[in-house]
């Protein structure tokens, strides 16, 4: 029964990792940009939710309705200005620029709001859980976050495979030049992909703030877990990211069960094992056009 609980807790936290990681996966898959400020964007979204809600006289629980669209817009604008300019220079510039952005954001948050931890306050729901077995407790909040992650991934998958814009995003990801020759304005498509990535990371940031405390420097460690989830699942596969996130979560819970110190280590070991045995990830594709 103990192991059942470990697996369940791993799946719950894995859902959050997948929600956090899908924007990263999209940015890398379509724009070929590794956004090192991805984690910090989530933290900024959580701060915006906390600070904006009192002004708007809404419960923090519903702040995502405002924050997510703002971040979508921010993603588009940031892509069309700063990120596109660094893409135009060369791929390494994007690493430097997003790293710089990360440093600026963390220090700005420290300067403005101190290093104290904060939470997105959702009242007493946070402490409630479903208790299906003797030692199994399933937090409602974690369960809702997992459900949101699955829902977001399903909608994103449907959007990418069925809609015209989604098709253009995939075309640009496959071959940017050929997409241009088919009439796609790739910079606009990049902007849309970045908007989706930022919207999902805002959702993930608020979810994080609901589940636990966040501080200006919380982004880094979550970015690492998101990277691992993407690589384990396989780059370019959304469901792979979900499976990767869950595999990472379960591994971490197993490690933590053996010894709390082993939590992160166990996740990293799984990550290294996947890289060694199956570098393209569990659902990654090796096939290329002949």
């Amino acid at each position, binding site marked *: 029964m103990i192991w059942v609980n470990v697996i369940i807790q791993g799946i719950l936290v894995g859902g959050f990792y997948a929600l956090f990681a899908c924007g990263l996966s999209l940015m890398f898959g379509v724009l070929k940009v590794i956004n090192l400020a991805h984690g910090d964007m989530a933290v900024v979204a959580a701060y915006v939710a906390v600070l904006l809600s009192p002004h708007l006289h809404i419960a923090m629980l519903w702040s995502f309705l405002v924050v997510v669209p703002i971040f979508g817009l921010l993603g588009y604008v940031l892509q069309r200005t700063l990120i596109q300019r660094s893409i135009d220079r060369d791929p390494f510039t994007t690493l430097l620029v997003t790293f710089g952005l990360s440093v600026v954001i963390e220090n700005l948050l420290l300067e403005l709001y101190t290093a104290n931890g904060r939470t997105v306050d959702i009242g007493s729901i946070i402490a409630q859980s479903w208790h299906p077995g003797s030692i199994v407790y399933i937090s409602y909040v974690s369960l809702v976050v997992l459900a949101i992650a699955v829902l977001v991934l399903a909608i994103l998958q449907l959007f990418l495979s069925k809609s015209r814009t989604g*098709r253009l995003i995939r075309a640009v990801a496959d071959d940017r030049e050929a997409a*241009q*020759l*088919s009439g796609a304005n790739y910079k606009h498509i990049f902007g849309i992909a970045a908007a989706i990535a930022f919207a999902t990371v805002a959702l993930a940031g608020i979810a994080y703030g609901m589940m636990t405390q966040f501080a200006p420097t919380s982004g880094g460690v979550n970015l690492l877990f998101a990277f691992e989830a993407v690589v384990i699942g396989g780059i370019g596969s959304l469901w792979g990211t979900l499976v990767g996130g869950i595999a990472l979560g379960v591994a971490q819970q197993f490690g933590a069960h053996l010894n709390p110190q082993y939590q992160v280590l166990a996740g990293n070991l799984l990550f290294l094992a996947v890289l060694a045995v199956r570098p393209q990830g569990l659902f990654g594709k090796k096939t290329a056009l002949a």
Partner: protein
Amino acid sequence: MGEHILQVRDLTVHHGQLCAIDNVSFELNRGEVLTMIGANGAGKSTLLRTIAGLHHPSSGEIVFEDVDVTRWQPHKRVSKGISLVPEGRRLFSSMTLEENLMVAAGQSRSLPFTVERVYELFDWMPSRRKQRVWQLSGGEQQAVAIGRALVANPKVLLLDELSLGLAPIIVERIYALVPEIVSQGVSILIVEQDVAQGVMVADRVHCLLEGRTSLTGTPADLTSEQIDQAYFGADMAKGSLSAEASE
């Protein structure tokens, strides 16, 4: 509007230090098939890519339907009516045959080339439209690449090295479609290493040698000796680079 649908004036293109296209001028008439021939490195592909907007010229102009499009983005040229079938086909490898076509398909249904119309042109396609393109043979992939360019409803179709890596019989079949496409009011600019094939479908031939025009004329006017000379530059040693043939 003039009789020229596309005019290239004094075009010079550099790849870094290398001058790939050196002061080339020509025009494409409405409803015409013009074939560019030349050896590897003559600058043919660069020329087509520059017309499609993927390279920026160092100097010169590209005029399409009396509008200077030299500085336009590639996607804008596509919507105006210039489509390139790129060398190596460049299909979207993660997509099905039908999705490849739908990426480029216009919203209007009244234009001559819709996805359905392409399926009529290539009757094997409907039964395989759900297949991923990497499962198709080279010739089939080339057909999809042509179909993808057609559904954008170009007025000028640029075909880059259709014969590359394909069996002669397949190449012949693909070139057999050219008259059909022209009959829909499309003008075609072909770049081809396979001289015989390229010259056969052409109304006019333009030969490039090391980035310069070495010969122009109609297939009927040109002898194979002239073409050989223009293609290989056998004359260069004697110092007369261009053997301009009278049209």
